[in-house]
């Protein structure tokens, strides 16, 4: 029934610019409805329990993990990622840093810790739960990804280049879908992510819960899936390319108060 209604709205959009405004309002109303009572809070709670749970050969929790604001500081940490970490000599996003803590603090192998980074509706992944918790602790904090260290600037430039780089079987770039205003796929608006005003609300609400498939999705997944949709080779989890794209997008969105984890259609 909803799909039928959506189809009518899309047809209406073609017919009249007045209806286009109504459509946008209707979509906004729908987004408010799904955000109200979102299960995202349940993921935050599970994530907090996982953060405090001793694991790995060292049998320690992640509570001493340094997310950039000092060992164990979770408050406001997500809003300042990705950033450069001296101990690893690289720019890291949230999941990359979590992985770093799992291998260094908990003594787990990279293979074991990355065995299942993207979950499904029946069994969400550890990364998804943890991302929900850590991100939730940045609500109200302005996005301020690192943009001063030479490696951070390098990541930003690489991310920007990747955003506009056309490749793959369909010769697409991120900008092929996210480069023009007022475009959308069905109900989903396609924000021009290289522009500040469009990047801000998006980056302020990821990671996010998807109501259509009952899954919590991380930023690493979002980029991975964009690569799949563009028919690129699958990017490696926590690779420089994915972190560079995140850096470019988050720096572009700088200054927006974080209000996620969000709820998406």
């Amino acid at each position: 029934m909803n799909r039928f209604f959506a189809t009518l709205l899309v047809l209406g959009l073609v017919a009249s610019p007045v209806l286009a405004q109504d459509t946008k309002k209707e979509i906004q109303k729908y987004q408010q409805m799904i955000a109200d009572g979102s299960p995202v809070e349940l993921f935050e709670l599970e994530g907090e329990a996982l953060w405090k749970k001793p694991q790995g050969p060292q049998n320690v929790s992640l509570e001493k993990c340094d997310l950039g604001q000092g060992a164990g500081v979770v408050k406001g940490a997500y809003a300042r990622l990705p950033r450069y970490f001296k101990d690893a000599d690289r720019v890291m996003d949230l999941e990359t840093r979590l992985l770093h803590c799992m291998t260094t603090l908990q003594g787990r192998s990279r293979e074991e810790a990355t065995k299942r980074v993207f979950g499904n509706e029946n069994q969400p992944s550890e990364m998804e739960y943890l991302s929900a918790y850590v991100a939730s602790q940045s609500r109200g904090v302005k996005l301020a990804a690192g943009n001063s260290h030479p490696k951070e600037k390098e990541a930003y430039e690489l991310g920007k280049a990747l955003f506009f780089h056309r490749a793959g079987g369909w010769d697409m770039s991120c900008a092929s879908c996210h480069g023009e205003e007022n475009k959308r796929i069905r109900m989903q608006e396609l924000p021009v992510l290289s522009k500040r005003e469009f990047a801000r609300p998006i980056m302020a609400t990821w990671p996010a819960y998807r109501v259509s498939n009952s899954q919590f999705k991380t930023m690493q997944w979002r980029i991975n899936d964009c690569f799949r949709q563009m028919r690129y080779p699958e990017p490696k989890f926590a690779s420089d390319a994915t972190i560079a794209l995140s850096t470019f997008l988050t720096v572009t969105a700088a200054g927006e108060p974080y209000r996620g984890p969000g709820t998406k259609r």
Partner: protein
Amino acid sequence: MAGPMKMRASVAGGFTEVRVLMTHPMTTAQSGQALHFIQNITVKQNGKAVVEAEISQAVSRNPVFSFRLKGGAKGDKIEVSWLDNKGETNKIETAVA
């Protein structure tokens, strides 16, 4: 073990609004997996049952419920519990804000 629950309860205009989130797979027969869904929900106000609900597989995964109770005051104890078809159960209690 059952996953977490989250609840908010507030009083306004002579009504107590209760909103509760539950972690549950709510697996239907169509999924090909074993049926697993919440069957009973009980809402208690200061220990007295005020809502006894029976729900079905038609309810979504990780459901949210809200109840509007007549009357009530700040500090009232609200308890919501569920029982599923496998006999698993969970509950949460909060004071009305």
